[in-house]
């Protein structure tokens, strides 16, 4: 709740609206206790008194009634009617929407076609018809406004319900023996409630206007009872001679509706999950770098070398160290595997190379990324953009979310080719075709005109790889490129990567959580845990005799195919929380070989020969060879 208020207060306009609205609501609630004149006492001798005259601060109307008193009583009535109508419409509309969405099929069809019919009438005509049938009166106007607004709620809520009905927890509730009614009330309703509140807060103002409209036409409140609409209606005749009688209720309507709409927008912004995740804050095109100039004087011949990289996420006053002092190198034609569990920092390391970590909240605070002798962290955003996709390109886990659904494969490939150099149209097509052949897509001419949704997962990943190849990069960074794929397709994609490396002399950084995959395509491997590299070395040597206890345990808790039923060796406990890292070794609390020293100070990375390094005080003995 406090979080709700804090988020709400962030928007100044909404906050302003809330203050105005609360003031009006307070006035409306306390109207009966205020020292006001009777709103219905007629005094024709004092008609059309101007505002600020004696005994009537806002003047009097055509029958000499006190305008201030009528305004406050009218406001009270209008808000009450608008709110009631909104609650009734929300209640009935939501009930209809949830029922239709939950049961689906024929029930849904039947109910929603009825709602569509209701919607097909112009709303004011429908309201007039309803009032005509029921007879004029405030109660009937309320009913008419409520009915007219039911379809809006029904359609909105139905849409949301359909999204929730197919969630797994609803299936789970069915299996817990709950009846449909119980599922609707205890499982669905709490999850659609925020949407109902949003819909209500954005329509209350509208309903107050509609009721005022009906009263204005003389179909709502009946004389002498005052509401804002009837006040306007009665003042209409004197709009030229005594404009204040129209202006006073008019301004009140304006203020109420404006305030309610501002608050409604504020409520929506707070409850909308997309806004909570910060989607509205536009990240920069490159990750912010805030570090001292690196002084790595020696320029080596290595293709890509990441040195002492630190990437943090700064959220409020919390600092999450996602990547902490990571150093890696990849040479021409080499394949480096990075293995680790979720939250180990392997993806953030990869994204930091081309400064693709979204910023804010990401900041690179230390290190250098040397590519062909130059530090990528010191390039300007424009220079870096020219680099992206050209020398270093990426392949991501989910090809469906990285391909644009509305463009054909051919168009997207052409765009990737075009992005870095000017190429003619026919040449682009030729190149796109070549790329599709390079990633072994059967029937490439036909596939150029396919849309992403027409392709299987494996085929889409091939397109993703083709796009990465578009500008003949030196390195491809592949972040779990086969995790979403089936095992037979995974084998095909791994084979493709292996062939491309051989044919084009590509270097590859391959991120995965699977030792089997690492062993099949990587020359060397870095094991990451809690933002740090804990072990690095040639793949065969590390898999044969791991030096870090974590590597050893991780390897043994993955079952290997071909050994039948057996018990697995699990690692007890959980990885440390990234915002609460222990001061010593991050793995200490889960390690079987832990000693007192492990908890005390941070452990340094040490070289243990045979191109291997480990971050452990008491590493396993490694086999020679």
């Amino acid at each position, binding site marked *: 709740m406090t979080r709700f208020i804090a988020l709400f207060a962030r928007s100044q306009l909404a906050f302003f609206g809330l203050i105005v609205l609360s003031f009006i609501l307070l006035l409306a609630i306390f109207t009966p206790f205020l020292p006001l004149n009777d709103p219905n006492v007629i005094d024709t001798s004092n008609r059309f008194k101007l505002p600020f005259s004696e005994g009537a601060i806002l003047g009097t109307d055509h029958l000499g009634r006190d305008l201030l008193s009528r305004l406050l009583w009218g406001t009270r009535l209008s808000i009450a009617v608008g709110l009631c109508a909104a609650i009734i419409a929300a209640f009935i509309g939501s009930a209809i929407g949830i029922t239709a969405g939950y049961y689906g099929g024929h029930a849904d069809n039947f109910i929603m076609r009825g709602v569509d019919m209701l919607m097909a009438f112009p709303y004011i005509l429908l309201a007039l018809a309803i009032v005509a049938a029921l007879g004029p009166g405030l109660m009937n106007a309320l009913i008419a406004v409520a009915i007219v607004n039911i379809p809006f709620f029904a359609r909105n809520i139905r849409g949301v319900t359909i999204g929730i009905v197919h969630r797994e927890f609803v299936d789970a509730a069915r299996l817990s023996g709950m009846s449909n009614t119980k599922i609707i009330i205890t499982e669905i309703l709490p999850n659609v409630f925020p949407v109902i509140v949003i819909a209500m807060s954005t329509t209350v103002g509208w309903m107050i206007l509609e009721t005022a409209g009906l009263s204005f036409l003389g179909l709502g409140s009946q004389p002498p009872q005052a509401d804002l609409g009837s006040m306007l209606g009665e003042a209409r005749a004197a709009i030229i001679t005594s404009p204040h009688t129209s202006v006073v209720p008019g301004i009140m309507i304006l203020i109420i509706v404006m305030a309610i709409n501002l608050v409604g927008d504020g409520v929506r912004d707070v409850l909308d999950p997309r806004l909570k995740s910060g989607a509205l804050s536009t990240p920069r095109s490159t990750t912010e770098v805030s570090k001292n100039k690196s002084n790595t004087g020696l320029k080596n011949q290595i293709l890509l070398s990441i040195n002492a990289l630190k990437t943090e996420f700064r959220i409020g006053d919390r600092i999450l160290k996602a990547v902490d002092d990571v150093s890696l190198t990849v040479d021409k034609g080499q394949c480096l595997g990075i293995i680790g569990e979720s939250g180990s920092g392997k993806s953030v390391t990869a994204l930091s190379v081309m400064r693709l970590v979204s910023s804010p909240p990401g900041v690179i605070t230390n290190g250098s990324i040397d590519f062909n002798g130059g530090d990528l962290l010191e390039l300007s955003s424009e220079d870096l953009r020219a680099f992206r996709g050209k020398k270093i390109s990426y392949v991501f886990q989910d090809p469906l979310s990285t391909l644009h659904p509305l463009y054909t494969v051919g168009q997207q490939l052409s765009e990737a080719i075009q992005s870095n150099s000017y190429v003619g149209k026919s040449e682009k097509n030729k190149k796109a075709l070549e790329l599709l052949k390079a990633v072994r897509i059967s029937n490439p001419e036909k596939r150029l005109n396919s849309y992403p949704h027409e392709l299987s997962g494996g085929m889409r990943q091939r397109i993703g790889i083709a796009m990465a190849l578009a500008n003949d990069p030196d390195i491809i960074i592949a972040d779990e490129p086969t995790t979403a794929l089936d095992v037979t397709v995974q084998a095909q994609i791994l084979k493709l990567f292996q062939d491309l490396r051989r044919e084009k002399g590509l270097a590859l950084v391959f991120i995965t959580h699977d030792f089997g995959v690492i062993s*099949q395509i990587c020359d060397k491997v870095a094991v990451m845990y809690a933002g740090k590299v804990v072990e690095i070395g040639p793949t065969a040597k590390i898999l044969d005799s791991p030096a870090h206890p974590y590597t050893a345990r991780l390897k043994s808790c*993955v079952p290997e195919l071909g050994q*039948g039923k057996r018990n*697995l060796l699990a690692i007890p406990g959980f990885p440390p929380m990234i915002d609460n890292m222990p001061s010593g070794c991050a793995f200490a609390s889960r390690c079987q070989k832990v000693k007192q020293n492990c908890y005390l100070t941070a452990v340094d990375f040490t070289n243990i020969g045979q191109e291997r390094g480990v971050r452990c005080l008491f590493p396993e003995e490694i086999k020679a060879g």
Partner: protein
Amino acid sequence: MVSSLEFDKLSKKFPARKGALSLSKFEVTAVNTVSLKIKPGETFGLVGESGCGKSTLAKMLVGLLKPTSGRIIIDGEIFDKSDPKIFGKKIQYVFQDPISSLNPRKTIRQIIEAPLKNLHGMKRPNRDTRIKELFDAVNLRLDFLDRYPHEFSGGQAQRIGIARALAAEPKILVLDEPVSALDVSIQAQVLNLLEELKEKFGLTYFFISHDLSVVEAVSDRVAVMYFGSIVEVGTAKEIFSKPKHPYTKLLADSAPVIGKPLTLNEKSGYELPDILNPPIGCAFSERCVFAKELCSKETPIFHESKNGSAVSCHYPIN
């Protein structure tokens, strides 16, 4: 011996249309006449790639989907009404995504209590003792009960999901990819916990996964599913080391194993057949390196051998 769970020629077809405006309706077969017998106390594994129909099969087993034809028999009793409330006391489900299977707006206590209240009509004091037993069994602390699902890690949430399934006191658990959303170090914890629980409560497991090595490590027998049909059944020990069906062999060869070089053992360029346009004959024939003329003409029959293994192939590998 009465089998714990048996399904007899179970099929599920979904209505479909060729296009949004097309009037011609036809049916898509998701599960095609599947028959299996699962023994009491057994862990029966089911592997298959995405889209092969394994989740549809699982949903039918617990009454969440109504079979188009065929029978489900649990403990010798025919269950022909697909009502999860009737199924729920005998057979329960553990979902793949532990977080999304818990209602974000309910406390853990409310979630665990639901089956106790609705299936067993248990009163408050009895419920509390039962919840304590369950939480002890899955190694969770009791102070978790008043928290909300988003406060838990994947591994903890999956334990809660398992506790909820056990609360119904079922004899059988359908485990639909119970560890694929978890990190490897947590996977083994949950798999070992499942093994413990099986001993403790005398359960039978129907374990579904796309991960061959996980299925092999936990199962007694394994069935391989392809395009809606079971193509091979065998013991966990032998099915991947001595596969009879070429598809099983392809799966076993494709699984990345440390120290095994990458091999491709299929005709390149093919993936799952088009469900709107099912092939004639053996569904795997297009991808099969052993396929002969007969394969693309006639659908092979499911041959059972004496030792309980079975294969559906015209030319099984010896």
